[in-house]
């Protein structure tokens, strides 16, 4: 979850109605200055790639709903260990498809908001819902009682998200910007341990973000090959470097060690590998020219 102001964006059957909400806190990035002039030029046909990515994202969202339901069920049954075990794996589906999952301005914080994000928006703790609130209940308070309503709300929100994403139409920007944004998520919150401050399961999110970016790269690979073979070779190498580093922190059950077990040297190496992947990854936009 990134701290951004919320745009109230509504989608109904592919019709876009934008109402610019609170953008006061938006970062100081101006509009892309030359964007307007480009509408008239010839378009690159990415329809097959867009369809492939949409399919991937929807599958992830299907799984996210299924796994969230399992998590909520375990939580509501008061089975703390089972809920803890289900927490990080369920979230990976969300993190993998974040470019799509985050599309819905108000649903994203309801599902994935951290207390710090909520407070930053001037809201009180009582407005905090979603996964991270339950994370706090499980790992800090070590209880589930009293949080049943939050669990129900999480499942309801997950269902709402699942319904909404069915209408999303993927654009080239969603894919290309999304791949870099997935890495940026890793660089700014996962690598610092600020995403999962109670459970310290940050490496799960880390892995999922990388997989999400890698999927986009894989879908775009043929188009990239045609434009710049070297870039593809570089990306293969850099993805492998990140994956290899992550693998060092994998556990026997297919998960990852706690963020707290990482040394400064470990996080620095991971951060450097992600940055080295991010630079070439940000060049995928060449297929659009």
């Amino acid at each position, binding site marked *: 979850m990134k701290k951004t102001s919320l745009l109230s964006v509504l989608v109904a059957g592919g019709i876009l109605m934008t109402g610019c909400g609170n953008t006061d806190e938006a970062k100081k990035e101006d509009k892309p200055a030359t964007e307007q002039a480009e509408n008239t030029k010839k378009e690159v046909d990415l329809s097959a790639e867009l369809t492939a990515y949409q399919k991937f994202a929807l599958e992830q969202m299907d799984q996210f709903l299924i796994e969230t339901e399992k998590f909520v069920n375990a939580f509501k049954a008061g089975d703390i260990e089972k809920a803890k075990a289900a927490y990080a794996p369920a979230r990976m589906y969300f993190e993998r498809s974040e*470019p799509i999952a985050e599309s819905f301005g108000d649903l994203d914080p309801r599902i994935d908001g951290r207390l710090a994000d909520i407070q930053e928006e001037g809201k009180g703790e009582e407005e905090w819902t979603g996964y991270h609130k339950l994370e706090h209940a499980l790992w800090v308070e070590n209880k589930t009682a009293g949080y049943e309503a939050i669990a129900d709300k999480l499942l309801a929100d997950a269902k709402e998200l699942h319904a909404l994403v069915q209408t*999303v139409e993927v654009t080239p920007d969603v894919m290309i910007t999304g791949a870099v944004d997935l890495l940026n998520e890793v660089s700014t919150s996962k690598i610092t341990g600020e995403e999962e401050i109670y459970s310290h399961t940050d490496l799960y999110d880390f892995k999922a973000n990388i997989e999400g970016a890698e999927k986009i790269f894989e879908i775009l690979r043929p188009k990239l090959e045609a434009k710049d073979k070297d870039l593809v070779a570089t990306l293969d190498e850099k993805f492998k470097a990140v994956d290899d580093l992550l693998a060092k922190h994998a556990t026997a059950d297919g998960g990852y060690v706690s963020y707290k077990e990482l040394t400064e040297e470990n996080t620095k190496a991971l951060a450097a590998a992600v940055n080295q992947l991010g630079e070439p990854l940000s060049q995928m*936009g060449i297929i659009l020219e």
Partner: protein
Amino acid sequence: MTVSNDGKWIDKKISRRDMLKLTGMGVAGVAIGASGLGGVMKVMGYDVFEPVADSTTAVNKVDFYGKHQSGIITPVQTNIYFASLDVLFTSKKELQELFKQWTPLVVRLMNGELMVDLTKNTRVPTGDTGEADGLDASNLSITIGVGPSLFDKLGIQHLKPEELKDLPHFPKDQLQKEFTGGDLCIQACADDPQVAFHAVRNLVRAASGKVEIKWSQAGFNSFPAGGGSPRNLFAFKDGTVNPSSTDEKDLNKVVWVDKGWLKGGSYLVARKIQMHLETWDRTSLKDQEATFGRYRDSGAPFGKKKEFDDFDVETKDSNGEYIMPDTSHVHLARKSGARILRRSYSYASGVMTNTGAHDAGLLFISFQKDPAQFTTVQNSLGRMDKMNEYITHRGSAVFACLPGVSKGSYIGEALFNAL
């Protein structure tokens, strides 16, 4: 993009994330990123090696091409951004490619131009990060050096000059790993802090996957309107006894290497020296002056009137005492007999987390034809130097700064031509 023609919409400041959320909705008929005109080559343009000339029209410009690299005898600028880098490759060939890649980029930076031209494609990040846009060359100088560890990493120890080795441990050194050593250095000096930082940032970014920053330090100097050397944070003038930048004979004696592939280059010693401002500030002026062996106001050596007056450290007063105390910094440094070209900058980087004291001091930088010159001075200071009470050496590095570059050549070519 459908949304972008909506005037009301684009007038709002909007973050990229918000943009993404909107575009993610993707209505029918979304325009897919239209192409730029003509065949733009590699978007970043980094891999095209073609000579770029020193601009003849740029203002406040230091020339790149010449017998020596800039930033050594270039008149000292007001700001520095110094970066020590580690390389991520293991072959000499990759080092050569990096230097070839950097050469035209450095020239453009020193011309005050965008390091890489903008392309029409707004769907990719720009090749130059842009924060120096609209600023002139600001007398930017860029000095690139190679550290001892580089030769070991690339398995080319036979090319390592025997003078190039880590400095020995000096009395009272408290070196921290995070400010020590490095395979390469980029010294960017300019009369604008943003221009200096921009240069390092962009060269490192252009070398993504090939280098990473090990440590870096920003610094500043301020020059009195009436001339003379700048004052350090102890308020004393620094660099007074430097060789003159126009005295070629003297520079050949003190600064320039005259043999091997490094001929025309120079050794850079960098020391990050924390200065304990709080204790210094409660020291009487008399003791402060005795610490340096100079008058604070004029910068003149004890017994003299003006900053640049010559002096003999052995001179004694009628009581048989040294006029310049033999524990003073200047006395000990001069007595060593060794000379160096000092090009230091002050730094102030917040507070020390463990003590709450200023994290401030001197990014000491000196150039010499042999690092042994620095070692001789530092050893002479030894335990005697009254200054030790007020300073702690926290970082240290030594680099062989490559010879100058002639048009059509590239940074460090002599190294690659050496057998």
